[in-house]
């Protein structure tokens, strides 16, 4: 599904046509509600809409938690590679230790995760289906594993890569409904089966260029299957906390390392900016003031996108480096304001006393001004570091899997946010509380001083 180029407020695509077909069968007018693809399942259960469709993949966990229609389309997970690699990387087995991009939360992502411990490729998760291919062409990843529908659409849209003909796996698209809506689900199944039989689904798929011989075979198999809904995945196990905890802790490690590096950069750059604004001439002060206002006045999400995707034509930053740089330079603007205010809070008479005592300007800064300014800056700095720990979750948009992203993956697979959410909160608190404590202790020590 995609926005209609002629009228971006309207959606179009074969999912839209099938949804309309179902609505007609139910004697209803279809009303399209758009939500983030990863939120379709949670939204349908909340009751935001009755039927969720848009490349929703059939999988055992989905059937455990929701009412799910019969599959209406069979897709193939296909591997896209650069032309130069078309011989080298034919299958996933050829990509051991290489970076393979996909959409987070999909069957393809799960497939990559399952392969990873067995010397498989390194999965790189994206939140949309455009950037994986852009990054493939740009050389940031070595392959993209996604379904053939998305792959072929990207090939038509931008091109520049090769799709391996041998599928890595097959999967099915289904419509998802709230668990309580089994009656509606059964009606949807009846309509879907009837439209398969009378060829109108085939007509829709052909109109969107997604019909091929595998579909013919699949429809025949489906209709021969005499209307019994597969009870697939009933035996599929709910993954336990123990299974996910190592992944969460690893992700927490990423969050912590990322935050520490970004904060170190923010402090150093912040000191430089503050010193430039307090001590520099107008030629230095004006650009620094512009930098601070620009960074503070625009969303950090936008800055991350620009840094990672926008500049990829000039510098191709690795995702982690872009995350450190993006967060660090963003926080540097805030830190510099803290340091500037702290430097300016030191009474002028102390600085003049330093001068009359024969200390150089650099010595006055180092021995008199900075030590006192640091004490004033400590509380707001700690505050910022705690905020940075949490803001680091934003870097999942540039494919870094940190704690929040890992929790989201966990929650999606588990179908519940309760346990993952609590675990995630506990880990964040375990990282931020000792920090606040340390800051309070230092402040106390310095207050008596």
């Amino acid at each position, binding site marked *: 599904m995609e926005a209609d180029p002629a009228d971006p407020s309207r959606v179009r695509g074969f999912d839209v046509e099938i949804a309309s077909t179902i609505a007609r069968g139910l004697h209803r007018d279809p009303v399209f509600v758009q939500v983030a693809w990863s939120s379709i399942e949670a939204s349908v259960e909340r009751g935001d809409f009755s039927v969720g469709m848009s490349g929703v993949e059939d999988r055992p966990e989905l059937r455990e938690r929701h009412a799910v229609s019969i599959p209406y389309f069979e897709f193939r997970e296909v591997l896209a590679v650069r032309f130069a690699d078309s011989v080298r990387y034919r299958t996933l087995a050829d990509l051991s230790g290489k970076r393979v991009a996909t959409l987070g939360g999909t069957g393809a992502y799960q497939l990559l995760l399952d392969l990873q411990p067995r010397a498989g490729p390194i999965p790189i998760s994206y939140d949309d289906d455009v950037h994986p291919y852009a990054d493939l062409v740009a050389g940031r990843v070595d392959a993209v594993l996604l379904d053939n529908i998305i792959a072929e659409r990207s090939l038509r849209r931008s091109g520049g890569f090769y799709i391996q003909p041998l599928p890595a796996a097959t999967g099915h698209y289904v419509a998802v409904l709230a668990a309580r809506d089994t009656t509606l689900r059964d009606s949807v199944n009846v309509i879907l089966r009837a439209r398969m039989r009378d060829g109108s689904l085939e007509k829709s798929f052909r109109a969107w260029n997604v019909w091929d011989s595998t579909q013919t075979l699949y429809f025949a198999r489906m209709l021969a299957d005499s209307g019994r809904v597969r009870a697939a995945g009933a035996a599929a196990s709910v993954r336990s906390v123990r299974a996910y905890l190592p992944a969460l802790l690893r992700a927490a490690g990423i969050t912590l390392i990322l935050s520490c590096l970004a904060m170190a950069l923010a402090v150093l750059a912040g000191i430089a900016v503050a010193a430039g604004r307090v001590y520099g001439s107008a030629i230095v002060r004006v650009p620094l003031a512009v930098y601070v206002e620009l960074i503070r006045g625009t969303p950090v999400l936008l800055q991350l996108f620009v840094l990672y995707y926008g500049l990829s034509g000039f510098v191709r930053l690795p995702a982690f480096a872009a995350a450190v740089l993006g967060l660090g330079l963003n926080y540097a603007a805030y830190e510099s304001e803290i340091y500037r205010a702290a430097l300016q809070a030191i*009474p002028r*008479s*102390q600085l*003049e*006393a*330093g*001068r*009359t*005592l*024969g*200390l*150089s*300007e650099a*010595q006055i800064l180092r*021995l*008199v001004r900075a*030590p*006192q300014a640091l*004490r004033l800056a400590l509380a707001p700095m700690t505050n910022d570091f705690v905020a940075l720990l949490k803001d680091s979750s934003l870097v999942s948009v540039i494919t870094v899997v940190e704690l929040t992203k890992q929790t989201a993956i966990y929650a999606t697979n588990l179908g519940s946010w309760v346990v993952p959410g609590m675990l995630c909160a506990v880990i964040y608190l375990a990282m931020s509380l000792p920090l606040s404590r340390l800051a309070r202790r230092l402040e106390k020590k*310095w207050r008596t*001083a």
Partner: protein
Amino acid sequence: MTQALDVRDVHASRGPHEVLRGVTIDVAPGEICALMGTSGAGKTTVLRAIAALGPFDSGSIVVDGFALTPGHVPPESKLRVLRRSVGMVFQSQSLFEHLTSIENVTLALVHALGWTPEHANAEAMVLLTTLGVAARASAYPRQLSGGEAQRVAIARALAPDPTLLLLDEPTSALDPARRGSLGEVLRALAAEGHALLISTHDVDFAEAFADRVAILAQGVVVEEGSPREVLSESTHADTRALLRSSSAEPSS
């Protein structure tokens, strides 16, 4: 005898307002000179110009043979000699808040003069003892009383052994008993050969401890002489006005 300080016909302005209109004053080694005047007369401006903290427009200032030039305050790198010969005690609290009393005194000795910490500490203890605040050596500025802080600030300014010591309103934070003991400390310093220029509007203090009094009014020194001549016998209108305001509000 060569003067420790020689100020000739100094003009200075702050914005459009001309604060000093030709100030001339000198101080000899071993002498305490009180620069007196009402608030806003320009006493602090004179002191700041001598300490090269503020600019002056014309005239000449020579401290212990070092000549300051009119115009912008030169960079610190060109003031090394001056910094060695002039010490200043500020009116407002200027102790380094993050350092103890003794650290305040030793900071410049170690970092500007390159003394060893041991040498600096020994010298600082001598000064703090002389000034009667040795017991407060490891106290931080916020733990000191106004009088103690004043003495630590004097010890700090004296540590590099300056020829000329400038004190800006040193009695303003002190009660009368403390003023007396401060005066005795300053007399002892003069006896050692230091030249002292003290800005004050405390008539009793100047009368008791100064060798010479200069009255600053409307940006010029209008009268100069021994405390007795100036403070007891003067018929000058500006001096009488200063004396009246001083007896009306002994300290401000």
